[in-house]
């Protein structure tokens, strides 16, 4: 197996509805009426695979989408965060991301599939076997993107804990930070359980020994005996160790608390620098966290997130952005830098940021029906011309595409 040369960039695309711009669904290419069909998602992922991308992520949520931010550190006055916005002019409603990814898996061959899972309200036992199964149905192309939910209305859908509304200002106070820290600590425990369960079967646990009548060697199955503040999980998983051993764990992070999660528990962190200097600072902070956690040897991939409007002419991209902003009634803002320009300009920017230590990028197409093909048919050939992107898939698994070895099982006795 040949691996990606170190000079190569990794590229992922984040799929969310008709695209990341709230007015994206109004574009003629958008297909908003198809959003709840398998065919819509199959077409997008097929396009991403045609462009040889490493993987796609699928956004998800346990409530209706809202234009009000969950936890972004940008002042919007006293607006309570995470509330519903009552809007009817944007895409609302979505299908379960894990199931959407699984529905697409048999239709694709190489591309990684990374659905979002919400740690705050779901069971790590269920998600561990779900992602293991996604890894089986995709023969080694699964990952997950772990997310917390501080949204009061989502907590009300479960009725098991209450999150009082909190404003952005309050969030920045020590007690607000404490609340956030608690949710991220829970997410870290959640990932720990998911990972232990993946390892709870050794690879050769199934023996089918007809002579003794034993299907498994039970000494190669392990209780995980996790006990934490929010849950205890005994194990082992009901699903054998998945093809990749450990499917990819990824997370989006904007500040120190989530950087810690990225550094300690993930294989890929998505970060949102707005320039090269910020990219350098973030990489340094995550690297330091990693060293504190004594995992410096295996620094995770750090991907820069960017919202992209891509056209052949910069003016056309900017016009498109302006037109969509006008349709939305307000300028689109994002936690990530918003790029509007040409493939050449974007390739320049990606290479500049990569020089600061980012190993790849997760691009958020402003309009999925336009900007995803612009990535696969414009940006990718440009990067290939520069010799910094693959010209064919070089591995059969997502870990393979990312240059990550299949990890040893933490429970296996070393010989």
């Amino acid at each position, binding site marked *: 197996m040949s691996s990606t040369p170190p000079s190569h960039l990794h590229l992922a695309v984040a799929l969310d509805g008709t695209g990341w711009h709230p007015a994206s669904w109004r574009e003629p290419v958008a297909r908003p009426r198809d959003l709840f069909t398998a065919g819509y998602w199959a077409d997008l992922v097929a396009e991403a695979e045609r462009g040889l991308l490493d993987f796609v992520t699928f956004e998800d*949520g346990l409530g209706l989408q809202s234009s009000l931010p969950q936890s972004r550190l940008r002042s919007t006055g006293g607006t309570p965060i995470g509330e519903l916005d009552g809007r009817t*002019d944007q895409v609302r409603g979505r299908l379960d991301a894990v199931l*959407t990814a699984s*529905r697409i898996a048999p239709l694709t061959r190489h591309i990684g599939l990374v659905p979002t899972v919400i740690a705050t309200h779901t069971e790590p036992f269920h998600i561990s076997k779900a992602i293991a199964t996604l890894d089986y149905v995709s023969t080694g192309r699964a990952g997950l993107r772990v997310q917390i939910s501080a949204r009061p209305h989502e907590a*009300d859908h479960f009725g*098991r804990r209450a999150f009082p509304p909190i404003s952005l200002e309050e969030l920045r106070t020590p007690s607000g930070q404490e609340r956030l820290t608690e949710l991220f600590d829970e997410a870290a425990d959640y990932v720990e359980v998911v990972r232990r369960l993946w390892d709870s079967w050794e690879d050769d646990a199934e023996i089918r020994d007809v002579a003794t*009548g034993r299907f498994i060697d039970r000494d190669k199955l392990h209780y995980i005996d996790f006990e934490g503040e929010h849950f205890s*999980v005994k194990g082992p998983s009901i699903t054998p160790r998945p093809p990749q051993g450990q499917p990819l764990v990824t997370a989006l992070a904007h500040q120190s608390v989530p950087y810690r999660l990225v550094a300690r528990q993930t294989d890929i962190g998505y970060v949102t620098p707005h320039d090269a200097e910020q990219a350098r600072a973030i990489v340094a902070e995550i690297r330091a966290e990693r060293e504190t956690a004594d995992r410096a040897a295996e620094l995770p991939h750090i991907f820069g997130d960017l919202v992209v409007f891509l056209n052949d002419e910069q003016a056309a991209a900017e016009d498109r952005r302006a037109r969509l902003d006008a349709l939305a009634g307000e300028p689109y803002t994002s936690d990530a830098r918003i790029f509007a320009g040409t493939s050449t300009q974007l390739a320049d920017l990606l290479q500049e940021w990569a020089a600061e230590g980012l190993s790849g990028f997760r691009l958020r197409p402003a309009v999925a029906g336009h900007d995803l093909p612009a990535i696969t048919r414009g940006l990718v050939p440009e990067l290939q011309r520069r010799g910094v992107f693959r010209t064919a898939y070089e591995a059969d698994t997502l870990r393979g595409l990312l240059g990550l070895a299949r990890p040893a099982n933490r429970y296996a006795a070393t010989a």
Partner: protein
Amino acid sequence: MSKPLKQIHLAAHFPGVNNTTVWSDPKAGSHIEFSSFVHFAQTAERAKFDFLFLAEGLRLREQGGKIYDLDVVGRPDTFTVLAALAAVTERLGLTGTINSTFNEPYEVARQFASLDHLSGGRAAWNVVTSWDAFTGENFRRGGFLPQEERYSRAKEFLATANELFDSWHGDEILADQATGAFLRDAEVGSFVHSGQHFDIHGQFNVPRSPQGRPVIFQAGDSEEGREFAASEADAIFSRHATLEGGQAFYTDVKKRLATYGRRHDQLLILPAASFVLADTDEEAEELAKEVRRQQVSGATAIKHLEFVWNRDLSSYDPEGPLPDIDPDVSADHISKGRAQVRMYRDPLATAREWRELAAAHNWSIRDLVIETGNRQNFIGSPATVARTINAYVQADASDGFILVPHITPTGLDDFADKVVPLLQEQGVFRTDYEGPTLRHHLGLTHPDDLRGEERAAS
């Protein structure tokens, strides 16, 4: 004029983790690789089956404090594998067993509504309950539920999920690119549920799916389970596959429907059924005997005897006589995570009865376990099996069967190729699918039309 022939419903149960699944056969393939599921599902669809059925268990079984290692161990996540199977089949229904104890309604409703969208209306939910703290050790809640509340939680869970499925009506998404109206109104999916087990409110975030609600299965056999099925389910996954047992169960459950204002045809009775096929009836009998011996190895026989004796019998010879000692009725049960052990209500009486049987027939432990175990339901040539299945259905022993092959994943092949054509010739099984959704296959009314019928009748 005689009454018209009933149409038979057929489904395929992916071989599970009981000893009925013969993993030791050289033909037996993987229970976990997706290719096995694809083969099995595509065979069922080729044969125009109504649906594929997946069971579930949320903790690996243990016996004597150790993970049980003699049967198939390990299976995929139900929802995830069904969603993937939707990509490799076009019409086959996809039925998943999902526990109402270790899940939350909002999440399960999202998953089923999503599966129904992603499969174009082919999702079904076999609602099961459990209460054991043993399984609970894998979940946030732990072993929280008293046994007597499991049906009350299951009922409220299903009722809540139905409120969520019904919170969208199907006309909310305008997606009008010209006017900019995506939703008809901002209150889409609103729900409030306040009950003993769930107190939740908000807005559901998956629009109305093709079937409105997934088809609902129920599998319990107790008095409570039967009432639950009569009031709520579209179909029962039963274990009464004999002619007399089936008829008694069928009559009992169908007569309960009237209490809930439901028609006779609004609840299908579909027992699990095993089968053995060969060219002739004699060969099939021989083969069936051989399969039963494969299903009960010496080691398995000892473990099954332990279900009744409730003590470690590993020192006994499976080819020797039954133990003289009596079952231990004082201790916690030796077997965990297995519903089957509850069948032995009076272990002392069962042990006495088995000793007498073994003595009378000169049976070893293994012989006894084989002989008292389940015989395959349908054994014979394709013609015999087709005739028997049809006779059972026409005699109201069931509305069809959920077939459980003993070999993964090819155990259904012969049935599809040899028995199904005979049923089709007799005009009692479809030669092609007549509609896109599982409700079409099962002859079930869409929930929206059902409400229309109720309005028209009132």
